[in-house]
């Protein structure tokens, strides 16, 4: 059994792995040492007073989705930069399940408000799930959202050989043939689904939404012609640019990676929406700490713009009071649709 046990110790959890690789052996970090690191992190704001958790000097950055997804890839970009700025190690921890709800409910129930535990949050998930589910286990507001660092606007995408050349073509066809246009998307009452429902309302047509589990299966659905088109994020349009046509994007301005694609507003439909990704700290985390973290994420954003923009991400710098504005705006846009659906 010896071989087996050695490797297990080496493997324990990815969290510890990352930790070891960055920080040297975890157990060698003395309490004194940890305290000193903490001081560096909070020195300016607290005048040397370290609020809590002397024993652990690393930030747990929980990703409530599987590794490999957009949230994870972004966190991987941010991780080394955050470590550089804050001078603490940052561990990306995955806690997938229930479209994010499992991690969010656990976080709101048990995370310590000391700035060392943060979690990825996504709009509209955090707005939609508490309305949709009686037992989502978390509230839209029960935390301190640090920042939203990027958004991925929705986009209406059809295969390259589709008869629909423009958004108008598709809308006209849908008007004559209610419910026959099938649009795939990621998840139910997700950003994709909600904005498709808004398109139905705005254009006064009936479409059929086919939910898929995540973005993964959508390229296949497009290539195989299993749906008329998909209502997904701009990134898919960028990724598949030689085999699809993007009819419109749901952003206020055109997306840098897709300069030729009109916005829905240009086409006469007032639809601005998509997924916003950000991070939150537990409710009760001191404002100073939230600010330090918000600044760090903004700095990280600056440094990864060149890598993320070509993929179709739109960099955002939403923090402080703007956070409530964004949530209110989207809650207002989606709320009635969600309530109606229930």
């Amino acid at each position, binding site marked *: 059994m010896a071989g087996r046990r050695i*490797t297990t110790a080496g493997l324990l959890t990815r*969290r510890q792995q990352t930790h070891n690789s960055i920080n040297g052996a975890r157990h060698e970090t003395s309490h004194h040492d940890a305290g000193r690191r903490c001081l560096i992190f909070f020195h300016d704001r607290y005048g040397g007073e370290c609020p809590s958790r002397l024993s652990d000097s690393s930030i747990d950055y929980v990703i409530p989705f599987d590794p490999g997804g957009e949230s994870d890839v972004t966190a991987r970009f941010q991780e080394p930069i955050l470590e550089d700025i804050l001078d603490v190690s940052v561990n990306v921890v995955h*806690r997938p*399940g229930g479209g994010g709800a499992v991690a969010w409910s656990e976080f709101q129930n048990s995370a310590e408000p000391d700035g060392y535990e943060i979690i990825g949050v996504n709009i509209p998930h955090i707005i939609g799930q508490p309305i949709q589910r009686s037992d989502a286990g978390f509230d839209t507001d029960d935390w301190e959202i640090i920042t939203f660092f990027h958004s991925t606007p929705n986009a209406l995408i059809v295969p390259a050989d589709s008869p629909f050349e423009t958004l108008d073509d598709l809308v006209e066809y849908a008007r004559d043939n209610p419910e026959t246009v099938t649009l795939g998307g990621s998840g139910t009452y997700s950003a994709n689904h909600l904005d498709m429902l808004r398109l139905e309302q705005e254009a006064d047509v009936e479409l059929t939404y086919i939910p898929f589990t995540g973005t993964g*299966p959508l390229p*296949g*659905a497009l290539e195989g012609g299993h749906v008329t088109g998909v209502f997904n994020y701009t990134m898919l349009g960028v990724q598949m640019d030689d085999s699809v046509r993007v009819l419109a994007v749901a952003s206020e301005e055109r997306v840098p990676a897709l300069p030729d694609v009109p916005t829905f507003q240009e086409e006469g439909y007032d639809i601005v929406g998509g997924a916003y990704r950000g991070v939150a700290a537990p409710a009760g985390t001191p404002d100073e700490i939230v600010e330090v973290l918000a600044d760090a994420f903004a700095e990280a954003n600056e440094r990864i713009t060149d890598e993320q923009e070509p993929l179709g991400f739109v960099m955002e710098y939403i923090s402080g009071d703007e956070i409530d504005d964004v949530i209110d705006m989207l809650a207002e846009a989606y709320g009635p649709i969600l309530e109606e659906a229930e």
Partner: protein
Amino acid sequence: MEMLLQALASLMTFESVITVLVGVSAGLLIGSMPGLTATMALAVLLPFTFSMEALQGLIALGAVYMGSIYGGAFTAILINTPGTPSSIATTFDGYPMARQGKAFEALTAATLASVVGGLVGVAFLLILAPPLARLAVAFGPAEMFWVAMLGLTLVASLSSGSLLKGMLGGCIGMLLSTIGVSPVGGETRFTFGFPPLQGGIELIVALIGLFVIPELLTMAAEGKGALPREGDFGKREASIRQVARTVFGKPVNLVRSCLIGQIIAIIPGAGGNVTSLVAYNEARRFSKDPESFGKGNVEGIVASESSNNVMVAGSMIPLLTLGIPGAPPDAIILGVLLLHGLRPGLDLFTETGVLTNGFILSMGLAALMLLPVGLLGARLIHRIVIRTPYYFMVPCIAMVTILGTFSLRNSLLDVAIMLTLGCAGYFLRLIGIYAAPIVLGLILGGIAEQGYVQTMLAAVTDPFPWLRLLSNTLSKVLAAMVLLGVATALVPIWLQRSGRLDKASPDKRGEP
């Protein structure tokens, strides 16, 4: 061609070869531990690949992937516990062989089959990627429904003994698959107001619980190890050459299993979890002596292990050409590609062709590496399993199992679910309901549901919506295969029962 040579040259550096060697060995160890899956092996490795160049990172991931899928066979054979879901079928004949003292033979056969499977997968990926990718996208919701149904017909052959009990197991599995947020529609089901249950029952958690825990309880209850000591290795050890003769002496089985592995690998969502089961089933169906399967027939191991290693490179086809991850570990490789600014698609084979071909070839190298690493590892692990008394073995495995389960999603609830299912599984096994059909139901329940509901949604304006399920040739062919599968499973039983086929199973009836 020039690109291929260039890629080969970039692979033939000391650094690359060492990366592959280390990757395969690490993957093997991780894969051989129950609860630590290929997906997790890749996730653990991920942070280390950031500091590497794109090619080195991909080589490391490919090698670990190959090693861990193969490593699953070790525990499957030695302690009747699949290390990864893709080696479930390896337990059926591998463990009986081990109990007969032929563990080393079984391990060698698994190694040879894995090497062949790995190489075949790489060959498919190099030569046939574009046409196979086109086949992959033909599988829409309706087709996925039939694929799942086809998979469920396996229950008949997995339910050693009573068909009814097998189906009961399948139903339990499908019911378990409905816990949590529904795949289409998004409503929460069977959470009983307990938010953490929204995450549902993770396949691996159920797999570990249902396979490992009953095995441990049995070991503890009977007070003896997984393998009888008298079968001690070294005494009746078959030479590698002998085993090779058995494995390659029946090329039809090998070829068939590789083809099955490749076809299923490209179906997005079905992934490697089912490949080995389907290949095993077909090996048994076409065998002249189907009764010997499940009792230690080496062909069963060959079918299972060759097909699941084809899947490693095979599932890269939809990933590299279309960006569709065919199996869960592929999603991580997709993330790495994006991280290095590489977009799946034709560019990957032209503009960055050297890199892509280097990656593909490195998987071939990894497959070859399985031979020395695997044979050496097989000796070591086999010796350890046999020499370790059960009262050390049981707690050790239990520890690894609990740690592995926890680290899947960093969830204590998963550990509780694993233990609960494990204890339930022990008693179910006592009444003849085995783990394999339950796990199969769990894997396929969600796929079937999703395919069916999506098809019905798309057909909302049709007069007969369910006709959509048979709207094209592929779905009709699949439906016919399901019917055939059911027929070949049920007709012999019916004939036997009505007394029209006296010789069907002489060992059971014992009639003159």
